């Protein structure tokens, strides 16, 4: 059986996803190009040996449209023979791109590939690509379409997480992210983004608020109360799917949900043989990946089910995993996952997550995969499970194992 190895992982810092964010002034193409260039340069890659580049991107319109992966390959001066394809599995696109790369490598279709992602949310706003799920009555009503925030608040209500619970988790995310930056835990992966002249534009995650406290969060108004209770009244819609919910408790707000940011990431994945031929040292082995569909109205419970699916497939149990990484889309999503598997919080999202650092939709999966490669090495651990909740009710997960 062919194996898929991770040889390297890079990511850009995450810029605030608004027009005052540092990365607002560079294009999405430039972000993707810089990630691809960095992974080539630091590994002295002969890019003609790369078969394909998979980049996650959730709003593939405007400058992110028309297969940004292939365009970035060309812009990064990769060999002309390197193909590229844009991947959309909503928030898990970046991880899905890596899973596809690994699968292609394992199947023999590719020897060396890159998985990654890009999302310039300050430039191509979330939702720009339209789509029928929320707009077409024939599917919106059938599936009780409700925005993610309503789903997250419903998870909090249904599984009993109070405003204090979710805020406490958010404070922890900020503290862990701040500590990780202070200790240089991300330095192996971070490549500063350069501007049009080539000067450094951003070298750190600028969305973080390390001095966040329970008090400072307490002053924030819930973000989804209005659209839930008043116009257009999504609470009543999601209650049609969950009649057990007497009233949705709106606990999420900007401080305990993932931040909107810009960023890109790339992960180099290949066979043992091609790695050796290129003089690369494998860092981790991809043991397996999986995706699953889950109930779409609540939308964000997929990680529980995909985690179980993947661990079962790999014949593994809780004890086999040392580090657990779930994208912090909303605090309650993580809390529910931890509750479902009764996980030790000390092993979950150990370096903080998207609540502190932000969630550049198409790139995040590849970013947190890279973070786990670094952390397995730093903490001297064996295996990590990486997963994300996904729009329209899905979950995607990957299990990796450190090699050296």
């Amino acid at each position: 059986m062919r194996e898929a190895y991770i040889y390297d992982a890079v990511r850009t810092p995450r810029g605030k996803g608004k027009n005052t964010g540092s990365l607002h002034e560079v294009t999405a193409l430039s972000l993707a190009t810089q990630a691809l260039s960095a992974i080539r340069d630091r590994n002295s890659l002969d890019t003609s040996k790369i078969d394909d580049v998979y980049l996650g991107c959730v709003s593939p319109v405007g400058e992110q449209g028309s297969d940004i992966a292939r365009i970035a390959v060309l812009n990064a001066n990769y060999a002309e023979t390197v193909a590229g394809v844009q991947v959309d599995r909503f928030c898990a696109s970046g991880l899905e791109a890596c899973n596809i790369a690994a699968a292609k490598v394992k199947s023999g279709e590719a020897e060396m590939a890159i998985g990654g992602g890009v999302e310039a949310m300050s430039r191509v706003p979330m939702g720009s690509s339209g789509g029928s799920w929320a707009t077409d009555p024939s599917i919106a009503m059938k599936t009780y379409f409700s925005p993610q925030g309503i789903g997250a608040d419903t998870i909090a209500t249904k599984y009993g997480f109070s405003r204090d619970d979710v805020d406490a988790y958010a404070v922890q995310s900020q503290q862990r992210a701040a500590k990780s930056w202070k200790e240089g835990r991300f330095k192996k992966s971070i490549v500063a983004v350069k501007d049009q002249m080539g000067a450094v534009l951003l070298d750190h995650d600028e969305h973080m608020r390390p001095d966040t406290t329970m008090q400072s969060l307490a002053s924030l108004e819930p973000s989804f109360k209005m659209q839930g209770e008043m116009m257009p009244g999504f609470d009543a819609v999601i209650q049609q799917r969950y009649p057990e919910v007497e009233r949705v408790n709106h606990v999420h707000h900007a401080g305990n949900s993932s931040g909107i940011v810009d960023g890109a990431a790339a992960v180099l994945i290949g066979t043992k043989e091609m790695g050796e031929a290129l003089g690369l040292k494998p860092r981790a082995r991809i043991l397996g990946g999986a995706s699953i569909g889950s109930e779409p109205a609540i939308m964000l419970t997929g990680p529980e089910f995909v985690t179980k699916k993947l661990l079962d497939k790999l014949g593994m149990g809780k004890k086999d995993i040392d580090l657990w990484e779930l994208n912090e889309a909303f605090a309650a999503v993580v809390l529910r996952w931890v509750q479902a598997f009764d996980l030790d919080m000390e092993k979950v999202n150990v370096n903080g997550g998207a609540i502190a650092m932000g969630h550049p939709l198409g790139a995040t999966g590849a970013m947190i995969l890279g973070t786990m490669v670094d952390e397995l090495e730093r903490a001297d651990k064996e295996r990590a499970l990486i997963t994300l909740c996904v729009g329209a009710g899905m979950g995607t997960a990957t299990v990796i194992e450190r090699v050296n």
Partner: protein
Amino acid sequence: MENFKIDVDADGIALITFDVPGRSMNTITASVMRDLAELVKTIKTDANIKGAVIASGKESGFCAGADLGEMNQRGAAQAAAPASEDEKLKKQFEQSFSLNRAYRDLETCGKPVAAAIEGLALGGGLEMVLACHYRVAADNPKIKLGLPEAKVGLLPGAGGTQRLPRLIGVQNAAMMILQGQDKPPQEAKSLGFINEVVAPGKTIEAAKAWVKANPKAIAPWDVKGYRVKDGPFTPGGAMAAVGGNAMVSKQTNLNYPAQRNILSCIYEGMQVPIDAALRIESRYFIKTANTPQAKGMIRSLFVSMQALGKGGNRPEGFPTYEIKKVAVLGAGLMGAGIAYVQAKAGVETVLLDVSQESAEKGKAYSQRIVDKDVSRGKITKEKGEELLARITPSTDYSLIKGADLVVEAVFENVQLKADVTKKAEAYLAETAVFGSNTSTLPITGLAEASVRPKNFIGIHFFSPVERMGLVELIRGKDTTDETLAKAIDYVLKIRKTPIVVNDHRGFYTSRCFGTYPAEGVEMLMEGIAPAIIENVGRQCGMPMGPLEVSDSVGLDTALKIGKTNAELSQQDYKKDPRANLLSWIVEDKGRVGRKGGKGYYEYGEDGKPARIWPGLSEKIEVKVKECPPAMKEELTKRFLFRQCIEVARCFEEGVITDPRDADVGSILAWGFAPYSGGCISYMDLFWGTKKFVEEADRLAKQYGPRFEPPKLLRDMAAKNESFYERFGAKEKKAA
């Protein structure tokens, strides 16, 4: 052409007079649809015609839309036609699309066409107007312009869902169509679907002037390069689409396919050119018309309501009973409400109570409503005063003299009712009717106090009287057809819908309605989380959750009834776990329901339910905490089947005999899932008696004999006979 008359004037402008022969109102009949094709051809090909103005030949208005009665009949006939499903659908499409095609041909005839509207234009009538290039309406705020199809479970199928959003924007149009709203001319003009408003009587002149000045008119959407500005994938349009879906989901609980399909027509139609859009609309029209919801709603909410509102269940052979004066006994909440609706309908009303003060208090109820209506401009001060002057509050029974009818509305106490009956009859003419407003006491028993039991009848009003449209008439053993006819005339006079039932404990409505909260209690006893019970109750189409209903009725009242029933059947009520629960809540916990501010619910200061009382779990352990879709479906069935089976029992026992009464009564009296067309239509159209009985048997096996179908239903199921086939003789006679 029998429906349209053409007069070409000196300028070459054809005045088309729309005038369906033999009817007081223009509707789009099959004959009109045939004529339209010819009409359009004439306008298009007659070289003498330079343009056209369409006006109505009726005083009553322009056109009221499709002929729903005809459609109801046609629907029944079509079901029999043997064909493959595909052929059947395509045939239906052709039939339905022909009107769309005719209007589209009118719109693209190459000559300017304007509509002159002097009276209401609704549904297919307004759609004809929208297909004209220019629309002139008379300046009269009483003129209704709208697309009411959604109210009877249909959608506008002749371009309404396409032209209106293109004219006034998706959001405004969606709101109007989804709710079936109508607008007066000035508002229609500011919205943008009427071009000009002129003095009444001047519309034809104005329309002709426009036609003369605009020889090359075409519709905006036929101008080259036209694009819908607010379709679903435009910045503003996307938000409106998402919000619209959520709002309709919330308001309909997905029980009304018409509303969903209207949104689909708009969503899909705004993305394509008008011709494709009209085909899409016609397909959704057929899809909608074929649902049991549309069939049930058209029949019950339109055809039957109209028939009953015209005395469709009145015994024949008796002259109309003129109601000029009515005495109301008891000026409590019900009596006061009855006095108000009578006075409003022009009936001289004597409002009697034991003290002048109580009687005056009863009249004050009308005063409050009148004051509010006057301040809101709903009626004039003079009309209000006239209304109030018709009510005479008094303690003097001799004022009953000359009354055509007496409504007794005193407390539910047999002795008290007997006393006032005797007292009143002393002054009542021999031909006058004595009506007792009771919701539970058997009429035959009450009639024993009467010297004229033949003239005695139950007249069961619902609270609040001024808002509830139904009156349940209960025939006692001796009540004559003549008395019933008179009582129906009375109900029609006060503009309510009468249904006729026979005497039985709880009659029809109270008896069947009670099964809904009762099933809620069964679920509670099983340990199903109260939130699930309440939410599913509302979501399956009932106006409130069953526990909230119990709270509104009063838990102490329910306990009292439970105790009485136990006594009657010589059982210890405490042995019944339901009664046990009730007595714990009422007697131990002091929670009597909404009126006491605490019951199954906790109530806020505004008197509205704040949350389900958490203390309930002290008594009943919650065992079922989640409600996946399969369970929701099961609970929905339990709620609806339980009520329907009780209705079927009423038929078996002869309590009710006309399915129209049963259907309309179930919707108007206790709000049974209106999308179904009522309890009977739910059985007939959503299941068919055969499948219904199979499912009821399964429920009975699983949950108990309360779901056991009565023998009548089994007999019908053996032939898969519907209630309307078996009991619908009156309906056929009326048609």
